[in-house]
């Protein structure tokens, strides 16, 4: 099965509420994003993981703009490309990105993941309740219902709070530099 078929199927299941399929989709995408950014950011390898994380957040928050009749990898590639250009624009780096094919976006080299710093900074600036919720669910094993129970709220309310927290994170990361 080629990568587009696989990612598309996983994404569709994720949109249907299948958390395991969605996790796999984002994990595969994360590996590809890391390779994509690493090739273009040889000057600032420290920013690669931040960009991977910012792009994954954007993919998640903007998923309603993916039209399921279109290619998923072409869509994800456009998100990554936009985030890279935006990153350069904010840092006032004069750099142009040649027109690229989204097939090349899928090149399968796999650089080692590192730790992103921006996200922690953004997380630290969230209100306590949102921050604790994000920290709780990111630890494998604690489901949204359990994390909600720890915070004293229902699963539905936890879902809304988590969504808001992720949106706030994306906004703060974008304004970080």
């Amino acid at each position, binding site marked *: 099965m080629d990568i587009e078929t696989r990612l598309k199927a996983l994404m569709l299941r*994720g*949109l*249907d*509420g*299948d*958390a*395991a*399929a*969605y*996790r796999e989709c*984002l*994990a595969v995408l*994360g590996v590809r994003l*890391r390779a994509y950014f690493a090739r273009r950011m040889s000057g600032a390898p420290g920013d690669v*993981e931040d960009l*991977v*994380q910012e792009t*994954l*957040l*954007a993919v*998640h*928050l*903007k*998923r*309603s*703009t*993916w*039209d399921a009749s*279109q290619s998923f990898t*072409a*869509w*994800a*590639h*456009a*998100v990554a*490309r*936009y985030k890279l250009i*935006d990153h350069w624009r904010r840092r006032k780096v004069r750099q142009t990105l040649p027109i690229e094919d989204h097939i090349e976006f899928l090149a399968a080299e796999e650089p080692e*993941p590192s*730790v*992103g710093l921006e*996200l*922690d900074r953004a*997380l630290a600036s969230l209100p306590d309740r949102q921050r604790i919720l*994000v920290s709780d*669910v*990111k*630890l*494998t094993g604690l*489901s*949204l219902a359990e*994390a909600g129970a720890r915070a004293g709220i229902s699963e539905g309310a936890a*879902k*809304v709070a*988590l*969504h808001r927290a*992720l949106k706030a994170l994306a906004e703060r990361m*974008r304004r970080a530099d």
Partner: protein
Amino acid sequence: MRTDDLIEALAADAGPAPGLAPRRRLGVTLVGGGLLALLLVLTWLRTRPDLGEAMRGGMFWMKAVYTGLLGLGGYLAIERLGRPAGSGRRGWTLAGAVLGLFVLAGVVQAMMSPNIRMAMHMMRGHSWHVCSVNILALGIPMLALGLWAVRGMAPTRPAQAGFAMGLFAGGAAATIYGLHCPENTFTFVALWYSLGVLLVAALGGLLGRWALRW
């Protein structure tokens, strides 16, 4: 934070995105912006006194179809440009073709007039000095709603997306403006209506550059 931790948090939020899907957001924008423009016509500009009679004639509808198609071009463009990797080509082609046809009709009509004074009169009508500005004013509420709606989407070409949203808003506003404006020559409409719609589009492009980043 490790990326795997982030993915864990994102996976906990799996499922359809909350809120309205892109097409629905734009539909709500059209209804809201159209009603606001209508309200402005009813309370501020007033409908043309001969509205009932005019609605039985062809030119009233010709104007509405023209500006409606310009707006449709804007809609088709923003519906695509609001998404990563989206291209506005279909919308630009439609709007460009309709604009070209109407300008041609306007030029032909002006050239067929018996003398230069008549032609100038057709160009200026009775309201050339307010027409474009009125359309701009009617279009601004919908443009504001629209930019807010598009912020919830993910345009990767912000200026183009703003222009497309402005074309959508301007076309809708100009269509509503037809309820007030009694001008009925191709020459006048091709010049001043088109200019009004393009003003809203240009404003959208200008604002889009900074309002539509994400």
